[in-house]
């Protein structure tokens, strides 16, 4: 890295800065500023790094004051709850410390591992998550490609405007619309009876929940999901299409060999994000839609922990379940990101 002498100089100045000794740091400054050759850059950077915290604070103190309130927000409402997860390993008493009262080790972890309901809801979560990934994820890409083939700009804009609209609906409204459409005399059952079938009481049959959930998810999210793909599509170089045409590619092959590779980075980034939130399936929507009859397919980790935690006040137990879910989510994001960086060279960071 660097010669011994320079390292010492760098270390010395760093120490000086830490001790807030202006004289020593001034000496160090002149020392590091001297002509030591390019190999000392790392050391100098390190020295400069330590030295300028004070200078940075003096120069940018107004900028730092702007950071105070937001940082307080992050610490209090994001990082303290993260630490609060420790009550998964400590007994929490209502009214007591949010970090719990006494260590109980893996008691609550063992509890959910031995809890058959937990494995039931875990399975439901996986199923809904996989359905979302397999069915809902590709649809915006397809819709974006379809929109991209339109020549009438006005028509395109109209379809886009309509398809974005459900995204702005409250989940309460979405649940209300689902109830309305799946009612015994709702539109869907009218269609079924018109074709000679029997009306189905959708919201009482567990086997229909997954269809309803994924269907409403498609309705609400697919149009909005096209935005980024359409933006990516517009940046594909038109010359590539020309070259492909000269090489004899028809429209289909142009799409396959030019368009799709062109939007691949966007696809990868969104896929990673989707994988990360894979277990966090639409908690609020399920909470609004489900009822005890639907638990066999509708109950997911989040709704179960809501019932256990808020419903029956078993805070520590519910936290253990939540922590398990969060750690899986984090692991999934990190691995998906690492894999995609290796394989396709696109990643979140």
């Amino acid at each position, binding site marked *: 890295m660097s010669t011994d002498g320079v390292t010492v100089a760098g270390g010395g100045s760093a120490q000086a800065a830490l001790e807030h000794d202006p004289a020593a740091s001034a000496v160090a400054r002149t020392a590091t500023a001297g002509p030591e050759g390019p190999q000392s850059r790392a050391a100098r950077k390190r020295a400069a790094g330590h030295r*300028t915290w004070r200078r940075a604070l003096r120069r940018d103190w107004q900028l730092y004051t702007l*950071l105070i309130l937001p940082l307080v927000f992050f610490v209090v409402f994001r990082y303290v709850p993260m630490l609060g997860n420790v009550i998964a390993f400590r007994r929490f008493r209502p009214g007591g410390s949010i970090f719990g009262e006494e260590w109980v080790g893996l008691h609550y972890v063992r509890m959910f591992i031995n809890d058959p309901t937990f494995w039931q809801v875990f399975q439901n979560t996986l199923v809904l998550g996989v359905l979302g990934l397999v069915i809902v994820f590709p649809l915006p890409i397809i819709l974006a490609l379809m929109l991209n083939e339109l020549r009438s700009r006005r028509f395109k804009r109209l379809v886009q405007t309509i398809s974005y609209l459900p995204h702005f609906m409250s989940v309460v409204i979405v649940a209300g619309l689902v109830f309305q459409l799946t009612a015994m005399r709702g539109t869907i059952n009218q269609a079924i009876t018109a074709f000679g079938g029997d009306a189905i009481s959708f919201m009482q049959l567990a086997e229909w929940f997954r269809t309803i959930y994924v269907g409403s998810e498609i309705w609400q999210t697919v149009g909005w999901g096209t935005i980024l793909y359409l933006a990516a599509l517009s940046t594909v170089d038109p010359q590539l299409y020309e070259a492909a045409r000269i090489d004899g590619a028809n429209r289909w092959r142009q799409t396959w060999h030019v368009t799709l590779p062109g939007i691949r980075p966007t696809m990868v980034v969104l896929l990673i994000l989707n994988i990360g939130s894979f277990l966090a399936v639409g908690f609020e929507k399920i909470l609004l839609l489900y009822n005890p009859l639907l638990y066999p397919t509708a109950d997911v980790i989040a709704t179960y922990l809501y019932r256990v935690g808020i419903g029956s006040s078993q805070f520590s137990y519910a936290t253990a379940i939540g922590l398990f879910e969060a750690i899986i989510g984090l692991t999934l994001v990190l691995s998906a990101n690492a894999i995609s960086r290796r394989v396709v060279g696109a990643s979140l960071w």
Partner: protein
Amino acid sequence: MTAENVTHLDERLSQSTVRAVKDTRAYTAFRVINGTLLVIIAAVTLYPFVNLVAQAFSSESYINAGQVNLWPKGFNVTTFQLVMSDAMFWRNYQNTVYYTVVATLVAMVLTTTFAYAISKYNLKGRKVFIGIAVFTMFFNGGLIPNYVLVNELGLRNSVWAIALPNAISVFNLLVMKSFFENFSTELEEAAEIDGLSTYGKLWRIVLPLSKAVIATMILFYAVSFWNSWFAAFLYMDHRDLYPVTVYLRNLIAGATSVDGAAGSAEATQIAANVKAVTMLLTVLPIVCLYPFVQRYFVSGVMLGSVKQ
């Protein structure tokens, strides 16, 4: 990126699609099918809203007979009068407005100041501050610790239970950050030479010239607070304090009924109609504003994606 830029993108997009010299017959067939499919998709997307409006203006007997689809049957506005004369509905509606305004204000102040500071490349510790924010996108404390914390802080039954825990959306933060990063350095330097402090620069130069992104962010936050229900559902104990989304949720779940018809057979009779009317009144502001503000949302999302 501004809305105009997005329009340019759109134009470029359609120019690039008008590149085929002569269509093959197969391609013409594809275009016809594609166009038809998109019309169907649009119609299906719109249908639930059409059905909602139809039910809101229909009489209950037609709804229960399953005869209301695209057009109201047994047209009436009595349910509208009933819902709108319900004092609780109006109180909850006012609560929604109040919560949305307060929460959006808090969110904007925190998001703007943080985004501005971390947009300065020469700010020491910049990466650490960005990291602190971004990490919370991937890992969070979860429901129970948050719930306990909000209760411990004594925020229950106040607007702060809604406004504070969700004051910064990291996505919005990154959108604003990338906007500020592209802000003209020369302009800020000139302002500095003219003797403006950092606050002065932000307040008098940067913010007035960032109206587009600020409007977009306000829209993002306002819509999400307008639509939110769960925080209020968790932390509000009295129905005087509910936002209209919780009112609606309880109506749908059958936990409350409109005062005028409480407890009678009539209550279940008019249920479907009342729900439709209440839902319609709740989405109305968004649906009315939507055509005008939609393009800002789109440009905001694209702006956020630039740096990803």
